């Protein structure tokens, strides 16, 4: 499973992305399970709102953090996210 660069990316509607005050972390919640996210993973997933494709997510984050060259890292993470069903494209 790979990311289609053309299509927008949307966070799964059967998962929940949530800030956990007690853990001071964003987490993904799904049936009887939880994944703890680091800050950059959470920033990427927050942009998966069904309006942006891969290039737009990269560009938004590069702008937000005043940096460049994030394409490879973001693509690699999104492929993991896709394989885990956290995001989808269609």
């Amino acid at each position, binding site marked *: 499973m790979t990311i289609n660069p053309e299509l927008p990316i949307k966070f799964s509607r059967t998962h929940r992305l949530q800030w956990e005050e007690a*853990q001071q972390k964003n987490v993904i919640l799904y*049936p009887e399970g939880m994944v703890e996210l680091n800050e950059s993973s959470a920033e990427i997933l927050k942009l998966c709102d069904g309006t942006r494709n891969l290039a737009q997510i990269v560009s938004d984050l590069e702008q937000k953090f005043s940096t460049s060259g994030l394409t490879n890292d973001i693509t690699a993470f999104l492929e993991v996210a896709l394989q885990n*069903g956290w995001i989808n494209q269609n």
Partner: protein
Amino acid sequence: MAGLIKTNPSTTLRADPTTTVGADSSATLRAGITPPRWLLAELTYACPLQCPYCSNPLDYTKYQTELDTEDWKRVLTQARKMGAVQLGFSGGEPLTRKDLTELVKHARDLGYYSNLITSGYGLTEEKIIQLKEAGLDHIQVSIQASSQELNDHIAGTASFEHKKQVAHLVKKHGYPMVLCVVIHRENIHQMPEILAMAEELGADYLELANTQYYGWAHANRDLLLPTQAQFKKAEAIAQAFKETVTGKMKIYYVVPDFYEDRPKACMNGWGTTFLTVAPDGVALPCHSARDLPGLNCPNVKDYSVEEIWNESKAFNFFRGDDWMKEPCRSCDEKDKDFGGCHCQAYLLTGDMYNADPVCSKSPDHGVIQQAIDSAAKSALSANEKPLLFRNSKNSKLLS
């Protein structure tokens, strides 16, 4: 076994050892104690089904009083404040509680991820919609077998067609659907049909839960425990199937620990992650702990969740490794499995401080082989005793 196997579905929620509750949190934790992450709310012991492997205590009829709505709301609020985030509404059959929707709503307002763990019996489309609107995140439906005849026999209730209909409705209304099938000698031969059924019903997750031999399952072990050959065959079929549904369905496989060399890391470590509250308000470090002697498990009517989690004798009993005897004490794997399951050690060796006898290093490991031999002999016997079904009549006889 790699790939298919998850040690225990209840340990998917990993406690992060680095997690700390800081000064900005409104609940406090004692040093060295991790906060609860998983609250299992056993709302009731009432259940229309009679499954002979039920994990409720054999003498459940002794505990007739149930917490009221305000008690449960208080418990949910207190546990959430400490950091609990996954919430299971379980039982018995949680649908028998009239205030279920109200509790689901309260849980959603607090930010829990709510799981309804149900037989599906009595679940209507109207209720499924009502629970969704209240904020329920997920419904786990149990099915006892892939055929109506066997399902209805094991459940002790004609429920097969209704359960399948409920599974469809759960999907229709946008919930992630987990199908749970408890595996034992009566249905293990149906593995191919069980997998096909899960696919047909569109399950997002399939939990293949090899029976864990506590409570009613312990009493019925001779009739439920499959042979190793049966396990291996079923597991190979499940593994092959798993590869065909990658990306569509996730399979949770609860390991048959009687055929393992090492015990399960029970509850992810005692008092580290899981909090069960029984229908009468007794707080338990694991749902079988009620049967352990001398724990004096506290009641949420008498103490706050914070006091129970931090201070109670029961929750501190097996924290750390000071309690360990040999072979656990000097074992280099003690941080991995924490000595295994205390309830199993107690049930099978009579001493809850012993190593879980599933471990091949345990001097009592022979009791596992004896159990396997006894079950195999029972399966061959012409006049095998009947299954002891989980119902009030049998519970009263056993109390």
